[in-house]
């Protein structure tokens, strides 16, 4: 019994360590890219085009993950691409959470007309196909990092609002809320002090999930060339370029794809791990 619990604990720990480790590594690489990246991300050199990664025959030292068809270093471009991906993940993820969770909390706890308005808004929002909506938004706002972030917030706030609303409703029916009401607490105070802490583990889990989704959305938008300017390296842009030379140089496609995959997976695993570890009810 005790052993089994230890095992679960260790596994949770490992999950947190692995996902957290990758994200920290990525963050460091992104922050320090100008100093530690082996090459210039935009420097083209046709004499060193399509060099394979370091373990294959024909690799050049200094080009660890090979080069693309224009001779640009893949590792360097992944590191610079991580900057865009992480900025989008952090800023868009957090802003989406703040807006969505606040609306969800108000709808779920206050009910009545605020709930009517917010719920109908959610219904309307959900009827739009998200990627099409994003492309439409970018077309209106123009390309650029800010537009990508705004598009993600505008599309995805409903994810938070829906889940948080349901959770806040369930918590609002608990006796401890009635007790706080009898004790003379204000509605706003009850929402923030009694309900919010119980919804917080869910919000954190959703936030990390949302960060992963933001990374994917950014990649999709840069894949279709609607993210930031084409010159700056983004993972989506690299994947789009790598697609054209998959038979001659698979590494141009596979490495950014792997970075994207690991990052999204890490975000969701981090959320699950944090929830398991810090939810006082589960603990």
């Amino acid at each position, binding site marked *: 019994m005790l052993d089994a619990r230890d095992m679960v604990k260790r596994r949770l720990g490992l999950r947190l360590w692995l996902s957290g480790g990758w994200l920290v590594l990525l963050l460091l690489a992104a922050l320090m890219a100008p100093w530690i990246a082996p090459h210039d991300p935009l420097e083209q050199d046709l004499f060193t085009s399509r060099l394979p990664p370091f373990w294959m025959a024909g690799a050049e030292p200094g080009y660890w993950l090979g080069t693309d068809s224009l001779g640009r270093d893949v590792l360097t471009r992944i590191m610079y691409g991580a900057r865009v991906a992480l900025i989008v993940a952090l800023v868009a993820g957090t802003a989406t959470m703040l807006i969505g969770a606040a609306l969800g909390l108000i709808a779920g706890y206050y009910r009545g007309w605020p709930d009517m308005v917010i719920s109908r808004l959610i219904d309307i929002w959900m009827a739009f196909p998200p990627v099409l909506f994003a492309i439409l938004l970018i077309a209106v706002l123009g390309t650029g990092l800010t537009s990508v972030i705004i598009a993600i917030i505008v599309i995805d706030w409903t994810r938070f609002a829906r889940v948080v609303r349901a959770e806040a409703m369930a918590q609002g029916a608990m*006796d*401890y809320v009635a007790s*706080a009401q*009898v004790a*003379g607490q204000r509605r706003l105070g009850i929402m923030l002090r009694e309900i919010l802490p119980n919804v*917080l583990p869910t919000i954190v889990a959703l936030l990390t999930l949302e960060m992963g989704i933001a990374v994917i959305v950014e990649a999709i938008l840069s894949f279709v060339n609607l993210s930031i300017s084409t010159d700056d390296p983004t993972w989506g842009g690299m994947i789009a370029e790598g697609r054209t030379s998959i038979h001659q140089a698979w590494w141009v496609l596979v490495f950014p794809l792997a970075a994207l995959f690991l990052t999204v997976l890490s975000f969701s695993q981090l959320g699950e791990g944090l929830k398991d570890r810090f939810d006082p*009810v589960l603990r």
Partner: protein
Amino acid sequence: MSAFLSIRNLSAVLKGGPPLLRSVSLDVAAGEVRGLVGESGAGKSMIGKAVLGILPRAVEVVEGEIWLDGVDLLRLKPTERRRRIGATAALIPQDPMTALNPSRRIGPQITDRLVDILGWRRAAADARALELLEQVHIPDPARVMRAYPHELSGGMRQRVLIASAFAAEPKLIVADEPTTALDVTVQKQILRLIAQMQARHGTALLFVTHDLGVVSKICGTLSVLYAGKVVEDADVRDFFAAPAHPYSAALLAATPRYTDPKAGLNPVPASVIKAVDAEISAFDRGWRNG
């Protein structure tokens, strides 16, 4: 108005639905313990909730007055009512498992009201909470103050809730079936504890229960409820000697006795139900016409 809590002709309906409370009147004098008994669905808890201002959204009070300490709560503005109730009344809830916030420590959950509504200083409030936890016989109260609810057993939590209810020295406490969710051995202790605390603090108590045995142990007066209508209002001693209304007599006879294991159960006879139902419909007709 001599009674501390005085409910006058309180009627409530489910919005767009049937009546839940039918012109309920009852008084609780200062320091009195009044039992509120009835079958499930009779509206016992509804009355308690109405007094404390925590009626579910779907319930609407259509008429009546609730006088608490000389003020009609139903005529106050929501903010004023909230403050008034917070300063004079408290609740001992039914289910200790959901009545404490799972993600907050015990200490602040007791002291919130003292600090926020009554304006105590934090240190004084903490000292008060410790004192109360001692009064409800919680071992190592300092540790419990820092604990989360999930670290305590059901009985312990109910003790914490009792301490919390008495902490602000309210003049009235509504106990909503406080022993129903506990197992039998703990029930007895908790009941004795509530009686003890009530005597010590001289608080008026509105004790909602379906258990006449509990009423006989701690209440001085009782109101019997059927379908949201008070059918009998009596002194406990008189009631157990000779209940006045046929329904309450049948209810009393239906209480299982554990002295004779072979004796069967005595359900409330159909004739009694029919009579009391007729009484209710007659009342409803008069209500609609008048």
